[in-house]
């Protein structure tokens, strides 16, 4: 996987001709401008509907938004010029819509706070600040990591830090780590962070690197039973460790969502690395078993399931379906076209600006708006996946695929929970919901995706023309050709 080797083979991609890939940064700028237009319009609508007048806030937030993404765009131009031009605009749009909704819920809560003569807490300015910080981190990642392959050098360090970060809240006393029953925080003077959000990415880097290095091990066949190749027992190690770790999160941090998310990511990465569906089967089996055990053991899991089956029935119970039911009421009231931004009552739902922000958006933008948001996520993840498909190294593929999948997995878990598709497990909605850790972590994720996509589209340094000694077909696997079957010779070294 060393650089010279990768470079020398580049010229042989017959199906991916070594022509200069267009940078398309103009496209990115135009799309960013479009996103800025949508976000500013949304902002104006919120103000018009809520205050019946426009204030200077529009200008201030609008300019802040423009400045943030202008800087991001310039940075991408400078440090990842070949990166996919759709990724950043998608992120900018989601982030912007999230900001608008957080601002909108601020207004509603301020109104209520004033009538109860309580202190007003404004989340939107803090979220702008988080966005700026996230952008700084985004830039830092782009600059510090000029080539994603360098990450493999620190894989074990990342893995260790990741595990510690993940476990830290569980080990610390509740006074330093528990907020609203979830023991996932690290409370520092002045601010709190959710180390799990960052651990997610660190562990993915480790896992991708680990799987690529030990890939042969997992590919080795075990016994065949009923025509299915079972993995050898000792190869089950990593997935069992992952399962135990997730169960640990579940038990000690009471964080169902993160556990589910981690497990899904591990499964998918294992599958992509080994190309063997049996891992998914084994994983799902473990998941079902774990879920059943968790259901038997923990009352809060039973409560979540009861709330999922019929939130209206457990509406009045403590810890019951009130929140989900209110979210559904909001979604139902929004209907197909929504009540209009600023014209609904999304603040009725508890946690409307974090876990339930999609319910708030679904209420005011309607099914149409919610569907559009989901499509933006899909577009974002698919563009990330495209980068993973096109990049030439296995680590990049695995990491890119894992990161892309993470986005959709998060969206599936939280939006599925809000819309009663699956039991509610509180995790953040990427880029939309209020919260610094999630935003920062997801911007790092996007920076890595951009980095991989940049590597995928970057023209290779012109290879010295030399006669072809090897059969081209054996090497053509990593590009857009479909391999007839997973052959031993068909993988990169």
């Amino acid at each position, binding site marked *: 996987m060393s650089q010279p080797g990768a470079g020398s083979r580049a010229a042989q991609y017959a199906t991916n001709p070594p022509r200069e890939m267009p940078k398309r940064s103009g496209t990115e700028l135009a799309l960013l401008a479009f996103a800025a237009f949508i976000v500013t319009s949304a902002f104006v609508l919120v103000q018009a509907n809520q205050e019946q007048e426009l204030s200077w806030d529009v200008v201030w937030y609008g300019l802040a938004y423009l400045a943030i993404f202008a800087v991001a765009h310039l940075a991408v131009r400078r440090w990842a010029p070949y990166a996919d031009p759709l990724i950043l605009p998608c992120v900018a749009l989601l982030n912007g819509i999230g900001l608008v909704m957080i601002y909108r819920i601020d207004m509603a809560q301020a109104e209520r706070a004033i009538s109860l003569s309580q202190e007003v807490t404004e989340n939107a300015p803090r979220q702008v600040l988080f966005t700026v910080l996230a952008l700084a981190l985004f830039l830092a990642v782009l600059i510090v990591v000029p080539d994603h392959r360098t990450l493999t050098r620190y894989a074990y360090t990342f893995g260790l830090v990741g595990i510690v970060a993940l476990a830290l809240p569980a080990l610390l006393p509740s006074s330093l780590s528990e907020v609203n029953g979830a023991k996932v925080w690290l409370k520092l003077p002045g601010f709190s962070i959710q180390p799990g959000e960052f651990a997610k990415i660190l562990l993915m880097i480790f896992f991708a690197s680990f799987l690529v290095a030990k890939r042969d091990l997992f590919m080795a066949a075990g016994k065949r039973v009923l025509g299915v190749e079972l993995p050898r027992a000792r190869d089950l190690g990593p997935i069992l460790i992952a399962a135990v770790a997730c169960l640990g999160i579940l038990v000690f941090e009471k964080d169902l969502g993160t556990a589910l998310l981690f497990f899904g990511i591990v499964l998918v990465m294992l599958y992509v690395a080994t190309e063997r569906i049996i891992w998914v089967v084994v994983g799902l089996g473990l998941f079902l078993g774990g879920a059943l055990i968790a259901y038997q053991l923990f009352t809060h899991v039973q409560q979540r399931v009861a709330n999922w089956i019929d939130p209206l029935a457990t509406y009045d119970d403590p810890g019951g379906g009130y929140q989900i039911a209110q979210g559904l009421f909001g979604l139902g009231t929004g209907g197909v076209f929504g009540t209009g931004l600023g014209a609904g009552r999304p603040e009725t739902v508890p946690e409307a600006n974090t876990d339930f922000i999609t319910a708030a958006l679904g209420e005011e933008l309607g099914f149409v708006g919610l569907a559009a948001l*989901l499509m933006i996520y899909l577009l974002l993840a698919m563009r990330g996946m495209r980068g993973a498909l096109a990049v030439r190294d296995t680590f990049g593929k695995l990491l890119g695929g894992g990161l892309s999948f993470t986005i959709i997995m998060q969206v599936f878990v939280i939006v599925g929970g809000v819309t009663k598709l699956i039991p509610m497990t509180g995790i953040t909605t990427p880029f939309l919901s209020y919260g610094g850790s999630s935003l920062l972590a997801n911007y790092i994720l996007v920076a890595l995706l951009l980095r991989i996509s940049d590597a995928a589209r970057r023209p290779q340094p012109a290879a010295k023309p030399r006669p072809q000694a090897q059969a081209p077909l054996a090497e053509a696997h990593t590009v857009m050709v479909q391999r007839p079957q997973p052959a031993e010779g068909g993988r990169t070294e």
Partner: protein
Amino acid sequence: MNTPLRKVGVAMLVMVTLLLVNATYIQVVKADDYRTDGRNSRVLLDEYSRERGKIVAEEAGQVLAGVEPTDDRLQYQRTYSNGPMYAPVTGYYSVRYGADGLEGNMDEFLNGSDPRLFVRRLSDMITGRDPRGGNVRLTVRPSVQEAAYRAMTDRGYTGSVVALDPKTGDILAMVSTPSYDPNRLASHSSEEQQAAWEQYTENEANPMLNRAIRETYPPGSTFKIVTTAAALENGATPDTKVTSAANVTLPGTSTTLENFGGQTCPGSTLKDALAYSCNTAYAELAGNLGAEKLRETAADFGIGMSDLEIPMSVVPSSLGDLESEAALYQSGIGQRDVRLTPMQDALLSATVANGGVAMKPQLVRALLAPDLSTIEEFAPEELTGEAAMSAANAEALKDMMIASEENTSGGGKDPSLNIASKTGTAEHGSDPKATPPHAWYTAFAPHDDPRIAVAVIVQSGGDRGLAATGGSVAAEIGRTTIAAALGGG
């Protein structure tokens, strides 16, 4: 490694598709269930925070129910000017106890969700204004309403006054006393709402009952208008001879039915019988007519109509079973099981005043858009479509009522008003002779060109106790009301 990546890509597609399908189910298929769930406060809050339309009176557009902006969550406070005086007309609008009266009946229009307002609401949406409710213009004339309400409350009477325009059915006044203040029920403080609600509902005087249309009473001698009309329609004339005996024995019983005060009647014609309110004459008259003919004429006055809405629904008045001749005798003088609403009693006079044709009472003159342009105007309608009597008989009955008015005592007499009337003193309760009677007065004026018909009921004798009569207690209130209506116009 691309094959599994592609498969993961497909899996992501499937996951998002699942979310979309589920969102469709929640937001399209089940949307109505969730939106209308009683625990969903959004729709309710929306409705309450919308600028509700006004209820305005006919005269000079006086605002009876309006809104004032507030700085709380509901944004607008419903306010009633002269709340208790107009409570039977406006009803109330309470966050906690819902809406009743006109507020309830016209709710969709007032809160802006009525389809007739839709085009305007759309334009409101485009111009960015909050949707507002439509306004309702009433037929009520504040001068008449106020005179009637003051006349009742100044004397502390429990009862009701209804004033109609006999030619159109417009309700000029609708009073019920004692009354309640809808302002307290519309309060944004739920404690105040609850306190008011408990105070009003636990009060034995039942101030929240709209006596004019929601309660029936024995009409007593005012019902003789119906009996007379039935007799005239069946061949009698004002000069037809009737009995003047002091009492008659009810057929099939040993019970006697007496004239008021046990006296013989001063005259022996039908005209005299009405003028002096001779019970014996009317008992026999009803007995001779028979149940069917009496019922037929009564129906043409609107008695027995169960679907009358003004737009609030009016409880049906009825004659009772008329199961025996004795019952018929007693019913002929408005006793036994005859029960009329004050609204129906006003219709008796109004029908005579309008040449025998009852006009449908209506409270709403027009529906106005938020910008006060007219959306719909209501035209007068006939109540039953059948005349209760011919114009000639109506004319004859009118003359008889003029004579009756001349014989009626009580305050407020003013010959220039040209009133035609009939009083009633209705016995009720389980021991009628020891229970103060209801005092009735139904009249119209001026008799040559009727512009107002009224009915007054003062429950249980007002301040006169057992000695109360329609003339001594109710007549003055009726005349005051008529004077207010004619004096102003």
